[in-house]
Every structure is written in C-alpha cells, then in structure tokens.
C-alpha cells in the first residue's frame, strides 16, 4: 500500500484502535467526526489498522445510515418520510424536490452545496407535510410551495 499525507493523517487518527477489540465502529465514528464523512482512503487505513478486509469496513460503513461515505452538503434538506406527512401528500413534496434540485435522496448537488436526506418522523406532525432545512422545520407545504422553495434553494446553491 502507498502511504500519502492523507493516509498518514488518518493513520494517526485511528492509531489507538486495535484488532480483535470491536473497535471498527469507534474508528469509523472518529473518522466521520473529524472529516464529516468516511473518505475512501480511510476505509483502507482502518482495515489495515484493524487487520480486516477493506470490504469488511465498507460493508459496515454502508450498513449504518449514520455513517456517510460522501462529504456532507453545506446545506442539508431533510424530507420527512413519516406516516402523517405521507397521508398529507409528502410524496408530491419529494417528487418536486427531486425534480427541481435534480438529485435523489442521499445525494448532493455536484458542488456539494445542497443535499437531500430521507428523514424519519420527528413528532412535529402538526406541520405535516414538512421538510427541514438545516434542521429547521418548514411546513405544512403544498406542492406549489415546495416548487417555490426548491427553486430558491437551488439558486442559493449555485
């Protein structure tokens, strides 16, 4: 394996972890805490440190939705997938968001300025159907509202 500045930095970050000690998730969390996501090189470094296959690390990282393999967007839009929102037509909201922004769930715009995320109900169902822009609840939304909002978001993210 080739050692680069990036891998050496990650190597230092995960140096405390040991093979056979159930350290994989701790290592992944630590890397995500530092970089905001788990970079590809990090999986190789963690695998080597913990004497695992790289595939093992990747399989674990993809299993947990908490762990992400792409850089986080500057602005995150969460679409609530909860049943109350669904009943009040959140599917239309989702379709609008995806078509106007041109990205699917768990994807970022090309410049990583805006990202869509599928979220679970947070209990504020009186605002259904709703989305959260950087954690702030926006709703109730009609399809028309969403079009307007999505266009604004898209302009901002240029």
């Amino acid at each position, binding site marked *: *394996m*080739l*050692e680069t500045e990036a891998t050496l930095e990650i190597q230092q970050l995960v140096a405390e972890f040991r*093979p*056979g000690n159930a350290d994989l998730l701790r290592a992944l969390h630590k890397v995500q805490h530092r970089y905001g996501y788990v970079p*590809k090189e990090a*999986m*190789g470094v963690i695998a080597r440190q913990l*004497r*695992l*296959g*790289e*595939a*093992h*690390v*990747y*399989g674990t990282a*993809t*299993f947990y939705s908490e762990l992400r*393999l792409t850089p986080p967007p500057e602005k995150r839009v969460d679409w609530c997938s909860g049943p109350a929102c669904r009943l009040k037509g959140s599917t239309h909201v989702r379709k609008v968001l995806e078509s106007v922004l041109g990205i699917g769930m768990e994807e970022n715009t090309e410049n990583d300025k805006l990202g869509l995320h599928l979220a679970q109900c947070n209990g504020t169902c009186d605002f259904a159907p709703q989305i959260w822009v950087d954690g702030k609840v926006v709703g109730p939304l009609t399809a028309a509202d969403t079009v307007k909002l999505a266009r604004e978001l898209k302009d901002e993210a240029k």
Partner: protein
Amino acid sequence: MAKLTINGKTVEAPDGAPLVEVIKQNGFYVSNLCYIDKLPPYAGCRTCLVEIEGARGLQLSCTTTVRDDMVVNTVTDDVKQARQYVLSVIDANHSDRCLTCHRRVKCMPGDICLRDDSVTHRCLTCSKNYRCELQTTNDLLDMGKDSVEPWAGEERTYYEAAPPEPDRGNPFFEFDPQMCIICTRCVRACDDLRHTGAVTLAGRGFSTAIAFGAGGAIDESNCDFCGSCIDVCPTATLMERPNKWLARTEDWVSTVCNSCSVGCTISVGHRDGKPVIVKPDSLNPFSDDQICVRGRFHYDAVKQSDRLAQHLVRSGDNLQPTTWEEALDYSVEQLAAVHAAHGAKAIAFLGSPIATNEENYLVQRIAREVVGTPHIDFSAGPVNRAVAQATAAAFGTETLPGDLTDIPERAKTILVVADDLEESHNVAALRIKDAIDPRKLPLREPGRLIVITARRGELCDFAEPYGGVWLQPTPGQEAGVLGALASLLADDAEIASAASEAGLDPAVVSAADAGSTGVDGAALEHAAAILREAAAAADEAFALVFAPKSTGVAGVAESAKAAANVALLVSGTAATRSFFVLPTEANVNGALDMGVSPDGDGKDVNGILEAALGGEVKALVVAGDNPIMHLPGRARVQEALAKLDILVVVDQLLGETAQQAHVVIADAPTYGKDGTFANADRRVQRLRAAQAHPGDAKPAWETLSALGTRLAASLGNAVAFAYEEAADVTEEITRTVPGYEKFQFHGYFGWGKGRAVDESAAGQIALQPVAVDAPAPNGEGEVALLTGRTLYTSLEGATLRLADADKLHREDGVLVNQLDAVALGISAGDNVVLQDGAAELSLKATLTADVPQGAVFVSSYYDGGAVGALLPAENGSTAVPRVKLVKQQA
C-alpha cells in the same frame, strides 16, 4: 459413525456431520443455494428443508447435524411445497422470468416473451443458461410445472427500476449484480476459503448488494482474481470474463496446471478444440477445491493463432516453414556432422521444467544413449540442484518424503522462507493461511507463522496478528537470519542435547549472529522462542517451506543449507518430513527425477553456454526451455547461442531462444498433451489433452522419439525409441526411474494421491556450515535489484513478450520504495532507468511501501525476462545484484 436413514436408505456418516452434505454424498438431491461444503452453515436461503422424524416442523438440513437413528425424508409433498414457496421468494428478486415458466423450452433467444412484453431479461439470453444452479434448482423443484410464480398478478416492479450497473472493467471477472440473490456465498468463499475478504454485503434491507473492496471496481479492491467466488455463485452474477458466452463446453478434461510447482489439478472445459473454461479439480488433495488466477485464466494468455503451427528451418536471417520430416532430417544431419567433426561432447541438451516427465525422459535418453554426451541440463537446473544437494546433505535424500497436505491439516508452527509465496505459489500460501486462521469444518487448532522475506507480501499479515513474527532481513541476508536462528536454537540446552542424540553436531551452527542481517533482535528472539516451543512439543507438526529464488545459485544454496539446519534443530530426525521445497516451475522435480542433470564431468546450463562461447560445444538441442528468458546475463546467453553451429528448439511458442534457432519443431500446447508432472512434494499427476494441436504441431514426445531414432541410425547406434503413444514412455519411466514404479498410464486411478517418494526412507541427517557474507552497502545511486515470479504475468505471454502478458498491468514496471522515490524525485508512473554497466532497462515506476528502502523489485517475467539483462551471470557470489536507479528525463 452414526447410522441414519435417508429416504428409506440406511447410510453411515460421521457423528456431527452437516446433514446436507451427508444427503448429497449419498446421491440424494437437496436444493441448497447458500451452503458451501466444509464451511459452517449460513442458513440464508432456507431451501434445504427436510423432514426429520420426531422433529417439529421441517428442518434445515444445513444447520442440522447427523445423529444416530435419524430418519430423514427429502421428498415428501410437504417438503416439496415448502421448498417451492421459499424458492418463489428468492425468485421474486431475480431478473430472469423464465425460471418458473413452463414454456421456456419452446422459446428461442431472439424471441419476445409471449407471456409478458415487459420481460427483458431472460434465461434464454443469459450466458449461464443450462449451467446455472438457480435454474437447475427451479427445474428440480418443478417450479415451472407446478406454476409457482411469485410474480403472478404483480405489477412487474422489477423492470421499473434501472438495473444496477455491471462491472466489466477488468480482464478476468464479470460482475452483474442484477442476477444476484444475496446468497453471500461469494462473501464467505472470499473470507473463509481464501482469507482474502475482498467481497462484502453492502447496505441493508432491500438495497443490500454485493460489493468489492471499498465499493469501487473489482480491480481496485484487494481481489486476487482466484475465482473462488465464481465457483460458488449459483447465478450469473459472478462469471469468468474470457469466453463467458462460449463456456458451455463440449467436454471436461482433468489435467494439471503448469504455472507453479504446487501442481493444482484442474478441469479444463473445451469447445471447438480450445479450452474455454477452467475449474478446480480436487484430485490433488493439497490444492483441493482451489486454484489461483494463473490456473483459471492463463490458459488463454496466448491465442491459438499465436502458437507455433509450423515447423521452421533457418534460411539466412529468416525462419522458413518446412515439414516435420525435413526439420527432423535437417537436425539429424547437422547434429551428426557436429558429432563426426567434434565428438559427442560438442553436443548438449536442455530439457525443461515445464515439459512433461515423458519429454524430459526422452531428452536425457537421446543425450545419454544416442549421443553419449554428459552435457544435459535445464535453465532452472543449477538452482534446484543446489537445493537438492543441500537437502541430500542435510537429510540423506533428495526426494523428501514430506506431504504438503500436512501443512493445512496438522502443522502447528510454520516457517516460510520465500520472497513472496502469495505471488509465486498462491495456493501453497493459501493452505498456510488455512493453518494459521482455520475456518473450515472440522476446525483445527490454529498454527503460528514465521515469515522470512525482505519484501512485504500478504503472508506477512498472517504472522504477527496470529502470534507469529515476520523477520525482514536486508535483501540477500535470508541465510544470515536462518543462521542466527539456528545458532539461537543450538544455544538451548534441550535442543542441543536432543540434536546430539539424533547424531547432529550443534557446534556446526553456533556462534552465528544476526548483527548484519538487518533483522530486529527482539523479533529474532521471538521467532526463536516460537521455534523452541515447537521443538519442545515433539508431537506437534512443524513445517519449513522453502521457495528458492530463480537466480543466484550460491545464495540459494546457502539459504537452503541454513533452512535445513533450522528444520533439523527443531524436529530432529522428523525434519525430513517437515522440510518442503517449492521450486518455481511446475515440473522441476520431474525433470530432476528423469535425470535432466549433467553426468560426471558434464556441464550444467551455465557451463554449456560458457563452452558454446569458447567453441567447445557446437550443437544444442533445447526441448521446451528458453534460456534467454530464464537465465541471468541475457546478452551473454544470446551471444553463446549465436555461436552454435546448430541450435534445435522443440517448443510450443516462438520465444526468443526459438527465434535464434536453426530448426524449430512445433510442439503441442501444454493443455493439448498427454503425460505426467511431478509437483513440489513429488505428487505424480496426469496431464490430459484438452486442446487441439495448432497446424502441424506435434507433441514433443513424438518429435523427440523420432529424433532419437533417426539420430541413432545416423550415428550407427542400435538404440530403439519404439513408442506408439505417450503412455509407452510413461510405462518405461515406471520401469526405470526409482520412485515411479507405482504409476501406470492407463487404468490407474491414483492420480493426485500417489507420490514418487519412498515414505519410509531414513537417511543420514547432518547439520551443514553456512557461509554468510556481510551485506555490502549500496554504492552511490545504487539500489539492490530483487526479482521473482509474480502472480499475474503469464509465462506463455511473457515468452512471446506480449504487451498483455500481465492483463492487469500491475506487474509491468518496477516497484520502488516510496521514500526512495521521494529522495530521487520519482513520482508514480514516471519512467525510470535501471542501469548495470552498459545494460539498461527503462520501466514505469510504481511506488510502494512493500519493497524495503534501498531496493527495487522487477517481475522476473516482465517483458520476456528483460530484467535478466541486469542480473550478473552465475558467478558463485551470494551478493545481491545492484543497479543504478535513475529518473528518466522527459
């Protein structure tokens, strides 16, 4: 043993064996889509349900173990219906809708599905049609007949989403995840059968998918392309890329891989006279169900049209086609002329470590009986004879009785002295990993591994984490490390007294120190401690695996002596069975056994070439060998061959030696031959023809016996070469060569089991003094040049110097330590020049941390053995060759 009843038949099976295996072994069918023989059950597919009397409901036969008096029924209506329902759930996520269709046999690949026009992916258009386990399972469970259609009335949602992207970006595997049923066999095969762990389940829930490495392309992961996952895949998800669509074979032929001395037995599927697919064949119990990328894919490294299809004779600067008769007559005439003018000793013969025993036997017969010359050898001869001499002196016999299957089955302590065993002898490395990290049932006690290598290989990762140790000497100091180890062992009072009792003299090996070997003192002490424990536990098996380098006879000889010393100190008289030599090429042991070695005052291959330069040797017959490619000092070899009056080459490919020949007689491809090979532990194995002979090519045994007959007539010798088929030669070998008595060509069923060794032989054991030179420091701008056999470069492709000899292009360059590269301003992909005096080699640099600082590594087969130009001719020195490393100016 337990006695149980399966479908009314009483059978016996070991207590605790998995029921599913017992059912299959007794000839009953049981559907199972996730079980892998010998591995712990996964119980993911749930299709192996059976009825067991007294058990509640239906039971999974994979998780059930055999008990006495068990009554099992696999064919009741309940069982069948339950399996059908389970299978219909699996089918629902598979793209091919033909599986459960009763009219599949009526459709043609070009037809549109008459039942549903949205169906675009069908068994009929799938490359695995009629050789697919999922399809067979559906057929055998009558899914079509009983119309168990999971998608009846369904909205065909499968076809609404875009199928996942296939990965066709590498030359060996095709990975098309749309057919995947997530049985995870590939994941477990890669983890548990291969210890590689390149495949994983990614994601969760409905979006779960198979992924390689960190989710990228297969060739970006740590996949070794062994194809174990292909063998276990029940669908067309993972398949061989070469001949993917042709591999519905006409027939299968059981033969032997010729890529290294492990000698994995393989089954070659052929069609239209060409091999199109290779699967492992478990005749050889050491390779068992595994092969490596070479065995599986190198069969088509060279196209049939690039093989020699004509016999050639030199006319001026060109080689012109001729007939077999003329080529033979011309050769005989020229050889007879040399014989008449200069005597028998002006003629020399080279056999080959990749030719069959039969061919090598004939070569030495012609040399000894017809011509009467003592000059017989092969390119790999000097190195391997040096090892054989060292083992003979140490153990009293050259033919070591050790059985390689002891390593995965019993060895508790394993010492590996090899450059990178993973690359040179992949399956041997795999079996060592099996011993260190046992995953197969029944689980054995894990062993410990000591690796001695200057260059990091995958095996090093199996040392420290499993309680072993990796000793990394300065390049060329392997013998020094072994010497220091032996000295540490001899200092132990118990070992010394045991050695004296066994008739050894420990004083021979004492007082060597590790001062200049570059190995860390603590690591060395750790290794010695492990070996002391192994010596103390007399009932535990020890294995020392020694894979000699291909060049540097003097260094190899010292390493072999030093390794034998360590084995003797650890296991005393039992060492004979625990010392394993793995030669690089497939049939080195066969060539040695057949007597392809110089007699008395005869010259070895280097001597022959020296004599050719000096004009003493005027004629050379080369059968299957390629000294220009394999010997160090390339220019000297070429010059020597150019001086010959007559150079006769019998070969399958027009390699560089053949290009210099006066007569080239076309040989059949290795996989088109009948014959026998003897592998590293002298398992005598049978090659069978699976490939047509291109054009006029004739198997070498035919050419050689005709050459022998005619040459004998011309020289007035009454020597007969009366063979009608290769079997006749084998038969003669079994009568004349010691150790081969038990083999017969026809009607013999012990191939892969019998070994040409005397198992009861007890020779005189002895410790030998080892001469170790302190390593010379690198000169200004110099680096140590390491070479070796690598995994991906095909021998045949390299012989023709094909650009695609290494289809992955991982090995066609020089590996440079990344710190050295920084110091010299070399970045990855830069062209660098390696210089040794006038000889120069320009290559692409690959940066790595695996090669030690102050050294570079070039594959010995890169560009037809181009690195041979930089290696000094064999000169009796143990020093590592050094070259200047310069960045090429753009």
